[in-house]
C-alpha cells in the first residue's frame, strides 16, 4: 500500500480527492449505469450514498473539506423528478448558501458542484466526474487540514508574541494568554 504523504503543493503524484454525495434514486443509479455501461472515468471521486440530495447537511460538505477533500460533488434528481417530491430544491438552497460560505472562507467556487443527473444519464455522470477532476487538478490541492494547522500555528505564535510583549512590558495580562485557547480548538 502506498504511503504517500500529503504535500500541500501540486506535484506529479498529487491527485484531487473528491467526495460525492449522491441521491439513491437518480445519481447513484446513474453511477451504477455508468458502471454497467463500462464508461471509464477518473477514480478520484468517492461516492457516499444518501436517500435524497435533501439529506445533504451543509456540515457534511464542510466536514469533507476539513478532512482533506479538495472538492465536493453533490448529485440529485432533476427538478420535478425528485423521488421525495422536492428534496432536490432544498438541496439547491443549501448549495447556494454553501457557495457563499465557502467563498468567504477563501475556497474557490469550483470546489463545490451540484449536478442533476438522472438514473439514465450515465454519460453525464462520466462527463461531470471527469470535468470536475480536470478542474480540480488545475486548481491544485485545497489542503484545508494543513491550512488549519498553519492558522493554529500562526495564532499560537501571535499569542506567544503578545505574551512575550506583555511580559516585556511588565505586569502582563492574563487574559491574552487564555484567549488563544478557543481559537486553537475551533477546527478540531
Amino acid at each position, binding site marked *: *500500500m*502506498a*504511503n*504517500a*504523504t*500529503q504535500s500541500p503543493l501540486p506535484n506529479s503524484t498529487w*491527485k*484531487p*480527492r473528491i*467526495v460525492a454525495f449522491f441521491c*439513491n*434514486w*437518480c445519481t*447513484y*443509479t446513474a*453511477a*451504477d449505469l*455508468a*458502471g*454497467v455501461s*463500462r*464508461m*471509464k*472515468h477518473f*477514480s*478520484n471521486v*468517492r*461516492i*457516499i*450514498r*444518501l*436517500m*435524497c440530495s*435533501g*439529506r*445533504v*447537511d*451543509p*456540515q*457534511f460538505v464542510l*466536514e*469533507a473539506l476539513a*478532512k*482533506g*477533500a479538495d472538492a465536493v460533488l453533490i448529485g440529485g434528481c432533476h427538478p*420535478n*423528478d425528485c*423521488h*421525495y*417530491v*422536492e*428534496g432536490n430544491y*432544498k438541496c439547491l438552497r*443549501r448549495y447556494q448558501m454553501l457557495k457563499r460560505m465557502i467563498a468567504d472562507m477563501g475556497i474557490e467556487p469550483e470546489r463545490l458542484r451540484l449536478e442533476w443527473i*438522472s*438514473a*439514465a*444519464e450515465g*454519460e453525464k455522470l*462520466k462527463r461531470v466526474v471527469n470535468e470536475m477532476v480536470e478542474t480540480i487538478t488545475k486548481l491544485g490541492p485545497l489542503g484545508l487540514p494543513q491550512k488549519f494547522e498553519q492558522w493554529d500555528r500562526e495564532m499560537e505564535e501571535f499569542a506567544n508574541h503578545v505574551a512575550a510583549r506583555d511580559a516585556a512590558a511588565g505586569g502582563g495580562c492574563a487574559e491574552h494568554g487564555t484567549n488563544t485557547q478557543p481559537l486553537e480548538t475551533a477546527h478540531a
Partner: protein
Amino acid sequence: MKPIVPKKNEPVRIGFYICHCGTNIASVVDVEAVAKYAATLPNVAVSRTYKYMCSDPGQELIQQDIQESRLNRIVVAACSPLLHEHTFRKATEAGGLNPFYFQMVNIREHDSWVHTDRTEATRKAMALARAAIQRVPHHKPLEVKKVGINPNVLIVGGGIGGIHAALTLANAGKMVYLVEKEATIGGHMAKFDKTFPTLDCAMCVLSPKMAAIGSHPNIHLWTYSEVAKVDGYVGNFKVTVRRKPRYILEDLCTGCQECVNACVYKDAKFADEFNLGLGKRKPIFLPFPQAIPPVTMIDPEVCLNFKRGKNPDGSHTVSDKCKKTCVEACGDRKAIDFKQTQEIKEITVGTIIVATGFQIFDARRIPYYGYGVYPNVYNALEVERLINASGPTEGEVILRNGQVPKKVAIVHCVGSRDENTNRWCSRVCCLYSLKLAHLIKEHTHAEVYNFYIDMRTPGKGMEEFYNRIAEEGMHLIRGRVADVYPDPNDGATGRLVVQAEDTLTNKILKIPVDMVVLATGLEPHPEAESLRRMFNLSCSSEGWFLERHPKLAPVNTFTDGIFLAGCCQGPKDIPDTVAQAGAAAAEAFALIDKGHVEQEPNTAYILDDCCGCKSCIPLCPYTAISFAEDTKKAIINETLCKGCGTCVASCPSGSIVQNLFEDVEIYSEIDGVLAEGLF
C-alpha cells in the same frame, strides 16, 4: 437459529468480505490486498475474499463466521447495493444478526467497471471499504415496517399488453381499472392485418380478448380517459382519472349505430383516425367495427351541433344548430348527451401496470424519403390498413389514384439505427416488412423489393419465416435507401425512383416503383415524459421507461408497486409484449397475495433535545412532522415518513435522526473515504 443480540458494551467484531465477482472485480481490483488492508482496520475480526459472495456458499460463509467468530457487524464489498444489499441483509439475518448490522461497498459498478488502473482502483476499493468499516459500528438493530396493500390494480393502456395483464389479474379475482386514452381498446395490434411469423389474423386473436375485457365483471374499463394524477406509494396509490366526454352515455349506448346512419351528413367525409386518414367517417361514429366498448362517439370539432373550436378549458360549446337526427334515431335509449362534460374519477389501487405502448416514427423527419410529399409513399401502418379486409379499401392494395401497384419498394430502418433520428433497432420492422412483402405480393402479384441494412430475424420461428418469404421470390437488397424521387422519365404518373447501393454487388440501383412502403420504427410516446413524472419512473436516454434491472427485474420499475408491460419499455413484438404483460400481472399479483409491503426502516425520529423551533415542519413533503403543543417538541409520524432525510439535514439543533443514515454514520464514511494514502 437464535438471534444474536449484541450486548451493550460488547466489542464490535466486523466481518469483511470482498467478492471477486468472477473476474469482474478481481481483474481490476487487487482483492487480496484490500482484504489484507481491511484486516488491519479497527474492529475487523474476519477479512476474506471469495469468488462469488452472492452465491449460496458465499452467503453461508457469512452465516458461519457470525456463529464461529462471534461477528456482530458485516461488511461486503461487491456490486451495487441496489442489486444485492437485500441478499446480504438476508444472509446476515440468517446468521442470527439483525439484518441492518450490514453495510455494502460498491466496488464493481463504481470501481472495477469504470477504472482501468489497477493501483488506483485498488486504492479506491480500500477507501470505500474503510468507510463502511468505520460506519458499521454505529449501526443499530432496526425493524422492517409492514404496510397493508390494496388489492385493486390500475392498468394504464389498453393495447395487447394492457389487455392481457388486465385479463390475467381479473381472472385471478382482482379488481382491475383499465384506463385507455383512445375511444377503444386494441391499440396498434387492432390495426394490423396479419401477424408474423404465423400469418394468423390479428383481429381473430385479439377481438375475443377485447370482448372479454368489455364484459368482465372484475374490470372497470375506462376508455377515452387519462390518468391525471398519482399520489401515494406501493400498496396504496391514489389515482385521479379524467374521463373525456364522448357525448354518448356509455351505459345506454347499445352500439347499434342507428345514430351514425341518421346523421345529417349523408356521406362520411372526415378523416378516419383508426385508418390513419385513409378512410372517412362521420361526426358521429364507431371507432371501428369491433371497437370495445362498442359505443359510438361524437367529434365536437366537426359535429354541427357544436360550435367550432375548443374553449380555453378544453370543453366545447353546444350550438344546438343541428336537426339532431341522431338523437331522434337513438330514440328511447337517450344515449346521446351533447352536454356531457369531462368526469373526474378517484380510485385507490395497490399496484399499477404501465402499458402505454409506443408511437410510430414520423417519416416526414427523413425528408429524402418523400413521405407527406409524394402520395405514393406510405408508412407501414397505413399499408396494414390497406391490406386489412375491414380497412378503407376493404383489403385491396391500391394507390390513392385507385391503381394496383406493379412494383413496390419496402424501405427498412426508417427512423431506426440512425443518429439523426432514433439510434435503436426497432426490432419488429424487418419481420413486419417481410410480412408486408408477402401480403402485398399475395394481394397484388407485384414485384416487391426489400431494401434492408441487416436482416434481423431473431426469435422462435422468425428465421424460418424469413426463409419462407425469401423463397417466394422477393428482391432482397442489402442497402439503405438513400433517395426517393419522382421518376424523371415518367411525367406525372406518380411513379417514384428508389435509389440505393446494393452493398453486396457494389452497384448503385435506381429502381422505378409505383409504391414505396416505409418501415417506420417505434419510438416512445410523446406523453411518455409526463407519464414518467406522474408515475415517478425513470426513462432511458431514448425515452423508453426504464426497468429496474435489464435481466433480473425486467418488468419492475424503480418505484415499488409500479410495473411495465409492452413497448413503453422498449420495442418488442406481440409475443414478447404478452409475455411481459403476464409477468407484470404476476409481479402485481405476488405483491397483492403477500398482503403487505415491507418498507425500509430509514425513517427519521426526533430526539428529546428538540428545541421546538418548528423549522423542520414545512420542509416535509408528506406532512409527517407535527408539533406537539404539550411537550413543545416536533413529532414524526413514522407511517407517513418516507425517509428522505431532508428534515434531518435542516435541524439546527441536530435533534432529528434518520435510521440507516445517522449523522455519525455519514461522518464516519466521509472520514473513511478520505483515508490518507488512498488517492
